[in-house]
């Protein structure tokens, strides 16, 4: 009985491996604020990953004693008092996106315990930067009906 030639099997598997390595995204940025996302059932899946900018709002990890909330956009970190600087960063980010700027979406990853005051300040900054499409990120919870 002729033996099956398996010598190309490793190459095959390697190409699958490379495919996955390219397609799946490693976390590009280090998250420096701790965020516990709310859970929800009525969520929409976001497409077009490349046009999504993440803004994290939560407790800064490097400074846990202070209960003050921190904001992170890419690798920049802001404290609550510096929220007015956010606009410039968003505008910068928008410029970086180039022709995708019109499709820019901002995913707000906000900790459960953040107060609405801060969120409303952040939203005002987003409006001033004309980044009007936002998404409240959440973890999916299976609906039990």
């Amino acid at each position, binding site marked *: 009985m002729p033996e099956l030639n398996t010598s190309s099997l*490793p190459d095959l598997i390697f190409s699958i491996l490379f495919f996955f390595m390219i397609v799946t995204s490693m976390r590009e940025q280090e998250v420096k604020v701790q965020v516990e996302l*709310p859970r*929800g059932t009525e*969520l929409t899946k976001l497409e077009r990953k490349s046009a999504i900018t993440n803004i994290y709002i939560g407790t800064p990890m490097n400074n846990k004693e202070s209960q003050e909330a921190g904001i992170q956009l890419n690798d920049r970190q802001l404290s609550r008092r510096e929220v007015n600087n956010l606009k410039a960063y968003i505008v910068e980010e928008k410029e970086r996106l180039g022709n995708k700027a019109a499709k820019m979406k901002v995913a707000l990853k906000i900790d459960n*315990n953040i107060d609405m005051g801060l969120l409303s300040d952040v939203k005002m900054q987003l409006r001033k930067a004309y980044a009007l499409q936002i998404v409240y*990120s959440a973890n999916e919870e299976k609906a039990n009906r």
Partner: protein
Amino acid sequence: MGKSKRKVPGINASSTADISFILLIFFLVVTSMNSNFGLPVMLPNPPEEKDLQDPPELHERNIMKVYVNMDNEIMVTPGKEAPERYKVEDLSQLRELAKEFIVANTPAGSMNDKYPEAKNKLDTVSYVNEAGVEFFYPAPHSNIVQNNKHVITLQTDRATKYEVYFKVQEALYGAYNDLRAEFAKDVYGDKVLTEDEQELCRRRFVNMISEAQPIEIGKRK
């Protein structure tokens, strides 16, 4: 004893496949597809640039007001002839109230047959009420909105927890989603909907959630 006669022993490569399989599985486990889920919201233009539009004229019974105070308690004024404010204990109750309200204010057949073919997304505009509080509102210029004479306003305190706000938003979104699902079931039965049919269900119950700027009632000590 010539060099040509010496045979190089082949490396047994049969386990390479297993090794690469293990690598593959490792990558599958470690990298997250990291699918993003969330509630999409459209913000209005910045306040100083808004073209001063009159707030949409709505009768009191066509407005459902939802407040969340600094202690994260939810109060609702469901649009009834005699508006009264009462406290909502849990979110499923809020969802049911919202559904009731939306059904009562969305006349059947308001846009079943003639919905605009353009799939324009709803813009959001803002206006300021007499009390100086800014409201976000789906843009009244689109004819989708003009057929829907109702609005759900949501207002929180600056000290309200985000989690509660999110859950309230979700309950309101959920109310619309439930109604669309029911509508779809009535009209199409159990079949899988095409994109156009989905759009039609969406237009049957258009999301009319308006948002007010959080207010500051008092500082918590």
